[in-house]
Every structure is written in C-alpha cells, then in structure tokens.
C-alpha cells in the first residue's frame, strides 16, 4: 500500500539532477513554498548534498550568519575559497574569485568545485549567451536576472580546459534552479 510519505531530499535531488542533465533549462524545486520562503532553494539544495565529508565557502556573507547556519545543519566545514568543494555566491557575483576555485586535476576532474549562485530570477530563454553541449538539443540562451554581468565570461574562462572546470548551479528567489556544468560551451556575446 502506498504511504503518504514525502521525502524531501529525494524529490529535491531529482530536480537538481534534471537541471544538471538539461543545462540552462529552468526547473522548480519542490517544498520551497508559494511564494518561496527566504533561502528555501538554498536550504533544500544544500540539505540533500552537503555533509561533513565536504567543505564549503561563501562569497559576500559579512556577518558569518549564513555560514554558521549551514555548518550547524549539515556538518560541513567552512574553508577558504580555493579549497572549497561548494562555493556559495550569495549575491550572484564572485568578484573575480571564480578563477581561484578548484578545477580538479586531469586524473580527478571531479574534484573541481561546484559554485552556487543565488540570483533574483531564472526566467527561461532570452539571455545574451548561446550555450550548447551535452544535455542541450541545439542551443539555449538562459536568462539569469541578478547575476553579475561579468560572471558568464568568467565561467567560460575557467572552463576552457575541459575536463577541468567548475560546475555552476543557479538558484533564484522563487525556488527555481538551473545548471551550467563545465561541459557546456558558452558562446561569445
């Protein structure tokens, strides 16, 4: 018999996996509330991925409050940007620090970092950059509102030496997610 059980981590991960295997496309994370509660998308995402086996870092968290909450709830330890497995760009910008994040080694490219941008809005098509690669049929032009204008160029820059690189997740204030893994070619604007 079917129970009424709801399994947040599983349902959330499925959406993250969908987003990672269909780069640039927008997906709604479950359980974020309507309208989405503050930081709901970030909490749900980190809740199903982070534990004490991995480290994280935050860009733009002046009072350490977010970092403390994440550490407390996941057991993950905050480290410097160049050492972190997950880097959270809390205001949609990395201020040039993308270049200092881990890109993995040729033997172990999976040790490259995952950067999580918190932005205002993921609005589907209409962006300036043409993206193509595994998971995308043809090309796609995702529009990320609230992402610093230089970020896409910098992301392209750190991902030029594939398979080395950084994988990007974008979370918006409405509980939506989109991904740009390192395998994606970001066309010139």
């Amino acid at each position, binding site marked *: 018999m079917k129970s009424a059980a709801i399994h947040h*981590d599983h349902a959330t991960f499925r959406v*993250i996996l969908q987003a990672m295997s269909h780069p640039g496309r927008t997906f709604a994370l479950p359980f974020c509330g309507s309208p989405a509660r503050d*930081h709901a998308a970030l909490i749900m995402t980190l809740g*199903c991925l982070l534990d004490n086996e991995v480290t994280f870092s935050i860009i733009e968290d002046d009072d350490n*409050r*977010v970092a403390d909450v994440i550490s407390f709830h996941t057991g993950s330890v905050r480290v410097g940007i160049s050492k972190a497995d997950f880097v959270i760009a809390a205001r949609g910008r990395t201020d040039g620090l993308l270049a200092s994040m881990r890109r993995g080694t040729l033997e172990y490219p999976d040790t490259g970092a995952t950067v999580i941008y918190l932005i205002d809005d993921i609005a589907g098509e209409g962006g300036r950059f043409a993206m193509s690669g595994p998971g995308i049929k043809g090309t796609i032009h995702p529009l990320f509102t609230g992402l610093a204008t230089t970020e896409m160029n910098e992301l392209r820059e750190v991902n030029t030496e594939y398979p080395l690189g950084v994988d990007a997740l974008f979370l918006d204030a409405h509980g939506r997610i989109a991904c740009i893994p390192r395998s994606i070619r970001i066309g010139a604007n």
Partner: protein
Amino acid sequence: MRMSDWLEQEDLRLRQGESSVGGYPYGFMDDGAKKDIRRSILKAVAIPGYQVPYGSREMPIARGWGTGGIQITLSLITPDDILKVIDQGCDGSVNAVNIKKFIQTVADVEITNDTLTATVIQTRHRIPEEQMTAAQILVLQVPYPEALREVEASEAETRRMHAEADYSRMWLYLYEDIVNYGEITISYRYPVTVNGRYIMDPSPIPRWDVPKLHQAETLYLFGAGREKRIYAIPPHTTVEPLEFEDHTFRVEDFSGKSCARCGAADTFLDEVIENESGDRTHYCSDSGYCDKRFA
C-alpha cells in the same frame, strides 16, 4: 539566513509526514551514503563518460550482483516513481525480481513491466527496445567500468591514459583484432567515445543497444558497486562507437529471423537451441516488449 529559516524548512518533514519505510530509512541507505552518491552523480553528469570514484556501500546482496545500480536508484528514487527492473532484457529473472522486491520494500514505489510507464528503469546488460523519454532515467548495472582494462591492468596507468586522452593502445587492440580476424570481434561492452573526450565502457549491452546511447532523450547513469565508480551520459550527448573508416561499427545481424512468440523482426533476439532436435529458435530478449506485442 537565520537559524530559524532552516528549522522551519526542516519542520516541513514532520508536518508532511516524512517517515521510514518498512522499518528502514527511506531508500535504505543512511543520509551520508546518499549524499556521497548524489554528489558523484552530479559530477558524472557534468563530465560525461568520466568515472567518478565513490564510497560504495554494503547492500543486502553481494557486490557484483547489481549493487552499483541499486545504490544509484535508491539515492534518487521518490515515492511517486514507477520502477522497472530488467536483467538481460527480462522482467522476470530471479535477480530482477529480487531487486524490485527490495527497492519496493525500502522506497515504497510502484512496479511495472512496461518501459513506457516506468519513470526509473534499472537494467543489467540491455537497453529497452522501446524509445525512452526525457522524463525517464535508465540506471545501468556495471561489472567492469574501465574500458581500457583489456589493454592495461593497472588502475593508476588507465587513469593516466584517461587524463591525457592517450588511447593509442585501445586503437591498436582494435587494429590487431582486424589483423587476426578480419573485423573487430568485441560482441558486448563495445567501447565508445563520449562527448569527443572519454573512452567509456557502456556496460555489457550488446552492440545492438550502443546506437541508443547517441543523442538520446534519456539520462543514462552507470553504477559499478564492486569497482566503486559512477558515470553518466546526459541526454543529447554525442556517443560514438570506436571504428575505423574501412571497418565501421555494425550491430548484430538478425536478418531473416524473427521472434517465435510475438513475430517481431526488429528486436534483439536470444537464440534458443532445442536439446533433442538441435533446432534453433529465436525470442525477443526484451520480455516486456514481447509481452506487449503478444498480448
């Protein structure tokens, strides 16, 4: 973010009735195991064809019996899923049935034999005949994830070869095959190049199934529990079987043969030899598809 934001979010679990299933945590594994596997799956999708090492866990069946596939399935399954498990194309084989029972017990999912109804399909050695969609995930059980193992025994060395895309010995192996036998004789585990970068073992699927990996609608996840590796082919990814200009890849030839049960002439066929008469008959390997046609 305040501490209370997270607590409120966590609190939803209790109010919405998140609970254990059959006395086990949902999905059997502990949270740490599932998180490790999820992180590995995401990296595998981000680097198509690259084998991500992960901490393979003990399962209630022996390593080598599909534990890699089970761990992937358990880390991503939800109660809304409809699961199909096949072993060498068959829904009813002992291993497939027991894996289904186990996952149903710990993940509270519905079971089906219909490829088109399933949302998650776990498989050993076959890809279903019917075309799968973007909404579905195919999880393949993998005994030997390293395509280069035939030509190099050392893991350190194959890792270097992948790092440098140094695949000359693999090509030489294929060339020697042609010199000796006049064609490439690999029948299953046919090596492929994924996204123009990594040579990958597609698991022991027959050649027949290899073209289904190329520019597919569906996400393919590969789990090797004993060898502790996870890798992936996202949808719409270029997957090319290794071939030479004058010795191109070809699938098994079933021309003139058809399934003795449903009459299909366009499926991968198993050959059955009658003991007494020595007669050869053929049946669909994909039993779910054969049942559907026969009904």
